[in-house]
């Protein structure tokens, strides 16, 4: 028996939820809006919400002054590369744990998770030493490997929970019908696994894109991604709100869009399947 909801009550909830939603979103909205203002308008008192001359100048200045595209490219390569590497290593592992579980599978999964809990600052110096030793400091390859390793437990876990949901009977049925191992993998398992793999890729790309400990500490001029680029704005020079906004908007826009697609998988990925 569904409860009838009065229209009056629905109006109140709607108003309350929208007010809170807009309030939470406000800093992002304000950043995007300010990025289209001139520097003078950006600090105008009272704040300008509508009546200002829209300009794209800030975006051009940010690119020109700091070669924004280079940082963007570094972010894409590092986040993308670490995700691909992670997926390649994780798929076979998650696959075998889901389909050929042994007594130790659970322990291995939990142990993998525990490596995620090691505080990064505790191993900062050893990692920097290793980076210096192998000439990895300020290289995209080095960062790619580190981000792959810190996200690997989440990738394995997410894939494991997805693979677990593929019913084993389907595989047996395919085998009964005379499917070879290759056919089984290619035509039965892969199509069923692709949605799970796609969500995993998405979430880990986001996590790698936003990672801000190793990217700040292991890069300088060459391999710095957007996280480090934005941090360089922390020492202001003159009027810079509009330019900061333009740089920030460019750094978060692609991820906001990807994030909205991945919100459903977020819960599963970040609670290691404990909340579904």
């Amino acid at each position, binding site marked *: 028996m569904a409860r009838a909801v009065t229209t009056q009550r629905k109006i109140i909830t709607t108003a309350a939820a929208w007010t809170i*939603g807009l309030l939470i979103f406000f800093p992002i909205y304000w950043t995007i809006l300010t990025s289209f203002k001139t520097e003078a308008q950006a600090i105008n008192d009272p704040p300008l919400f509508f009546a200002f001359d829209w300009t794209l100048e800030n975006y051009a200045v940010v690119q020109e002054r700091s070669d924004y595209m280079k940082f963007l490219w570094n972010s894409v390569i590092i986040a993308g590369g670490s995700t691909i590497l992670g997926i390649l290593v994780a798929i076979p592992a998650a696959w075998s*744990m889901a389909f050929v579980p042994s007594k130790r599978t659970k322990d291995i999964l939990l142990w993998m998770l525990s490596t995620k809990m090691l505080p990064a600052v505790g191993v900062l*110096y050893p990692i920097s030493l290793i980076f210096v030793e192998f000439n990895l400091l300020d290289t995209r390859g080095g960062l790619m490997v580190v981000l792959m390793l810190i996200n690997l437990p989440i990738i394995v876990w997410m894939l494991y929970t997805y693979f677990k949901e593929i019913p084993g009977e389907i595989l047996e049925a395919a085998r009964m019908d005379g499917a070879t191992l290759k056919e089984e993998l290619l035509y039965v398992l892969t199509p069923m696994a692709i949605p799970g793999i796609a969500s995993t890729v998405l979430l880990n790309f986001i996590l790698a894109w936003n990672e801000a400990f190793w990217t700040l500490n292991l890069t300088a001029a060459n391999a710095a991604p957007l996280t480090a680029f934005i941090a360089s704005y922390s020492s*202001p020079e003159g009027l810079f709100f509009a330019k900061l906004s333009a740089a920030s908007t460019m750094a978060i826009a692609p991820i906001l869009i990807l994030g909205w697609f991945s919100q459903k998988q977020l819960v599963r990925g970040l609670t290691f399947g404990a909340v579904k």
Partner: protein
Amino acid sequence: MATKASRSAARMMMAPAVVLLLGWMLVPLIMTLWFSFTKYLPLRGDSIERGLDWVGFSNYSRFISSSSFWPSIQTTLIMVGGVLLITVVLGILLAMLLDQPMWGQGVVRILVIAPFFVMPTVSALVWKNMLMDPVNGIFSHLWRFFGAEPVAWLQDASLSSIVLIVSWQWLPFATLILLTAIQSLDSEQLEAAEMDGAPALKRFWFIVLPHLARAITIVILIQTIFLLSIFAEIFVTTGGAFGTRTLTYLIFQRVIDSQNIGLGSAGGVYAIILANIVAIFLMRIVGKNLDT
């Protein structure tokens, strides 16, 4: 179903992930442990090649007895505790609100989740300048509009300001998970209680809250692990000044700014122990869930 051959194949498939993670965990950990028992000041010419002097536990006792240790623990606890309190309480309320029927639910959900996807350096800088700047920030405009003196947030209320920024980043996470948990609540149970005349507060206390207990625990544990290592938000706002130096930041300063690797490594070992205490509880819950 599994044969001996498929078992060894399975082990082979697992090997790369296991070996990589084992190396990633053990190599730096052993180095940190080793450094923590030595005098290691690279700027004074100490290096691994020349051999490090063994100093026993003196780094450990020096780290704890330094005047900045206990304040850093206090700051860490306030920051983690404050953010947890705000995100869990507001997260429960928000999740209950979002669970109600309304117009445009999908859009509100997107608005609420958005901060989680903003990279930490961006959220910290946007809050620091666009909102909290004492001259040109939105808050200062607002304060002046009401005739009040604008506040220099990150100097005079530095710790609360960072708690606010970090809470804004993590509220979406708590809300999303609690919302998922609330949606699995059997609505008939609530309706039955309502017909029996149980007031809203009692229904919340005796039905909703117990149902959410597990999700709340998970939110607290996972957030604690991430919050203990908050870095970028402090790095770009106060740089550890004005009483915002957490344990993580103190270790970072010992290692990077003062280049005292032995001392910093001892601090790192403390941080690892602290994180592991939290981790044990989280693992128990996650592990239990694996059996079902």
